[in-house]
């Protein structure tokens, strides 16, 4: 049975969540390798989305709809993918630090990661330091994202990084920071790996970093 992976890319770009899930399921029933469904179907679709977004041809709700479709397709596909096929699109734990109730920027970043094929564990706002450490232990993500919108809560990010060190698991995750008052220098200073000024660039910055490490 022949299956057109291009159709998967196209459907992803239109952001049709249910259709894409169905198509992904159908593709899995053929003899196409699951890795090919990801690499030749879904990811090229997401590439188109991110190019259009950068060019200003697509807007956030449209991009997020595509990201949601990608997330849905990945739910179907992930159990069939080997670790190596998953590549960098692993798991991200993301949350807003203790004392901070700002939600929407962190959610945007989470959705963008979902769109890149990540399994996203969004632990929510106002999360105590231990919650981050616990989630890293439990989910073994390759990326930890922290958000802070207040200068008063930014120090929590450094504390979490220290706790990860103390727990001996700092090296297991790439730590990425975001939120309006956070800066590149601050991220360096407290020993984070990455900083993204916005949700759109976060995925790319993370991807480059993870690729440079292998």
């Amino acid at each position, binding site marked *: 049975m022949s299956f057109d992976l291009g159709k998967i890319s196209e459907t992803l770009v239109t952001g049709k969540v249910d259709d894409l899930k169905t198509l992904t399921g159908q593709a899995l029933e053929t003899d196409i390798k699951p890795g090919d469904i990801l690499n030749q179907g879904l990811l090229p679709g997401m590439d188109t989305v991110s190019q259009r977004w950068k060019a200003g041809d697509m807007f*956030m*709700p449209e991009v997020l709809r595509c990201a949601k479709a990608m997330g849905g397709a990945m739910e179907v596909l992930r159990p069939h993918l080997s670790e190596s096929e998953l590549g960098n699109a692993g798991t991200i734990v993301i949350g807003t630090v203790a004392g901070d*109730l700002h939600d*929407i920027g962190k959610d945007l970043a989470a959705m963008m990661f979902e769109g890149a094929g990540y399994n996203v564990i969004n632990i929510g706002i106002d999360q105590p330091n231990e919650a981050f450490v616990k989630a890293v232990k439990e989910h073994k993500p390759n990326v930890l994202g922290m958000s802070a919108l207040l*200068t*008063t809560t930014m120090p929590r990010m450094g504390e979490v990084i220290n706790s990860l060190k103390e727990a001996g698991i700092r090296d297991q995750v790439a730590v990425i920071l975001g939120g309006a008052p956070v800066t590149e220098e601050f991220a360096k200073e407290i020993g984070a790996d990455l900083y993204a000024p916005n*949700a*759109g660039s976060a995925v790319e910055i993370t991807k480059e970093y993870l690729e440079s490490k292998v």
Partner: protein
Amino acid sequence: MTNRTNYTINESPHFEILSEDQKEKIFNGMMRTLQYTGANVHHEKARELFKKHGCKVDGVRVYFPPELILKALSTVPPVTEIFPWDGDESKKIVVEKNRSYFGPGPTPPNFIDTDTLERRPYLRKDASLVARVCDALPNMGYVQSLGSINDVTNGLADVYEFADMVRNTTTPIMSWSFTKDGCRDIHRMGIAMAGGEEEFRQRPNYIFYGEPISPLVSDYHAIDKCMYCAEHRIPQVYSPCAIGGGTVPATHAGQLVVALSESMVGVIATQLINPGTCVIIGGVQSILDMRFSIYSYGAPELSLLSAAHTEVVHYCGLPMYSTSGCTDTKKMDAQSAMEASLSINAAMMSGANFVHDNGYTESGITGDIFQTVMDDELISMARVIEKGIKIDPETLAVDVIDNVGSGGHYLYEDHTMNWFMEHWRPTLMDRNSYENWVEQGSKTMKDRIIEKTRDLIQNYEGPQNKVPAKASEEIEKILQEAEERIKKEGVAHE
């Protein structure tokens, strides 16, 4: 003399976005939302209070019956007065419908350094500077700090800010705090400046600002502070920063319903605790820019939404906290002036009571006192339009017109002598001839703003020397105790 029947006078221009029927629709949308969708209140005591007064409570979710909302609205005061601590009547604030006071905004992390013009973290010294400059600006009717202090003990930026500002301006301050502890410290300072607790009750000298979270959430500290202010009859704002398309619907009507609903939770709490205490709602109403993912402070939608919200809030019989004079630009430029002009004019025409964020740049990330100084001039221009045109025999000047006839001029007329002083005069706008402009240094608007601001910083003393010694001592003592509190308890969490 005979009077005329059915003769209408416009004391001021009439600006209206929504009709009565449309306002009612939004009002009813709010009633429906609070009754059937409810709002989360992360505060047990507050939930108990609501329950006691007939609300259904399910976990943290509270459902408000319409009659409770109407009852709360029936006890909000029609007029509240806020007094400058030195008794200067000209700076008194009268919180009543369609009377507008403009001011800066609270808490951005950064500030434009007034010497280097570079963006840097906001420092303690900036709070005094902002207070002093605003004290001198005639169109700043109340004051906020334009930043949150980065160089004091973590968790005390709120308290230090008030301590320094109140001694550098007599214009009433709108304060904020992290938790009820800060709220209490600030209140003690307000009382010290008023000269006693009873004196403060008679003549409140500051306003407190707190925020619920869109959509439909009152977090612990927000409602905790709100209840504290109500108990102590501190005039307060309880208003969200609603992000159209993000935290509230992308449609303006839907945004207004949600923003009104979450604010109403605070209104109900205040009126249950202390009927007749002053509560102001409104907030930042703007959109999420779906291309650049920022909350836009320069969008025309901010002006439209804020003006419409003002109408709805006034329909409820409440005072409105609106927004203007802010921008998405990073450096003072034509864009900041364009965005500020539009929003200031719309806020003025709408008759909002307190209009904040005059001096916000970079979408609320950086405070800029130069922008505030520019806004001050824009506000005075908008006031010209607000004033409207007076029509009576004297202003119609039919006799004078007859006297001058066709041809000639009005420059010799007594009538002109009597009236020309009414024309608005700029302090920043350039109306020079080209030659004079060159002779005076070919200064651009930016140059003139910087010059005026620095002149105020250097030469305007403010009321520092008028602060009663006793009050100042008390403030220092409160600061010390606040330091001890943080040392003992840390930055509070719930």
